[in-house]
């Protein structure tokens, strides 16, 4: 079993739609949960960061972590064409070892 499993997509939505991206993880010891956005031919950049459980909101983006079900979600409200990218979920332990999902490619159609 992989440490992190991510819905593969690809996902195509109209502009303004609400987008839901999801991952599951296997190790209950993970404490750090991240979402990275990766544009074509660029390295991943940190989008959202959560420590332990709960929700975190930043503008149009909301990250949720449910440790009881080992489920990670990213919601994008009022999606824009500029949100078109690949989204990677990641978890990390206290030893600074990261585990990435395979990424979900998102296209927002104007």
């Amino acid at each position, binding site marked *: 079993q992989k440490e992190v499993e991510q819905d593969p997509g690809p996902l195509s939505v109209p502009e303004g739609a609400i987008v839901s991206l999801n991952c599951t993880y296997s190790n209950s010891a993970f404490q750090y949960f991240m979402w990275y956005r990766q544009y074509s031919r660029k*390295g*991943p950049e940190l989008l959202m*960061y959560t420590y332990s459980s709960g929700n975190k909101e930043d503008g149009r983006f909301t990250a949720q972590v449910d440790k009881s079900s080992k489920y990670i979600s990213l919601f994008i409200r009022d999606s824009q064409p500029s949100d078109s990218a690949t989204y*990677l979920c990641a978890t990390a332990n206290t030893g*600074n070892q990261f585990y*990435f999902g*395979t990424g979900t490619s998102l296209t927002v159609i104007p």
Partner: protein
Amino acid sequence: EAGVAQSPRYKIIEKRQSVAFWCNPISGHATLYWYQQILGQGPKLLIQFQNNGVVDDSQLPKDRFSAERLKGVDSTLKIQPAKLEDSAVYLCASSPGLPLGYTFGSGTRLTVV
């Protein structure tokens, strides 16, 4: 703050040739990572350094890949000899010790023909 610098940006080589990639992490970041990202997949850790010591190289194909981080700053990743399946983007990342400061470089896109 300057980001993680990588060079070259692109490289095309023939199979069985050798290639080297270079990474300059963010100043002060003790931890440095090399990842391999094959098209359509997430990054796969190759090696993790803490200062100039190796923390994890369990997924590094040691028969052909090698990496070093001299003086705990810059790092190089070498492939010798390259195979067709090594075609991927090689990403370098660095961290000050907390996941929040973890930063990727733009990567080196390697094509082996």
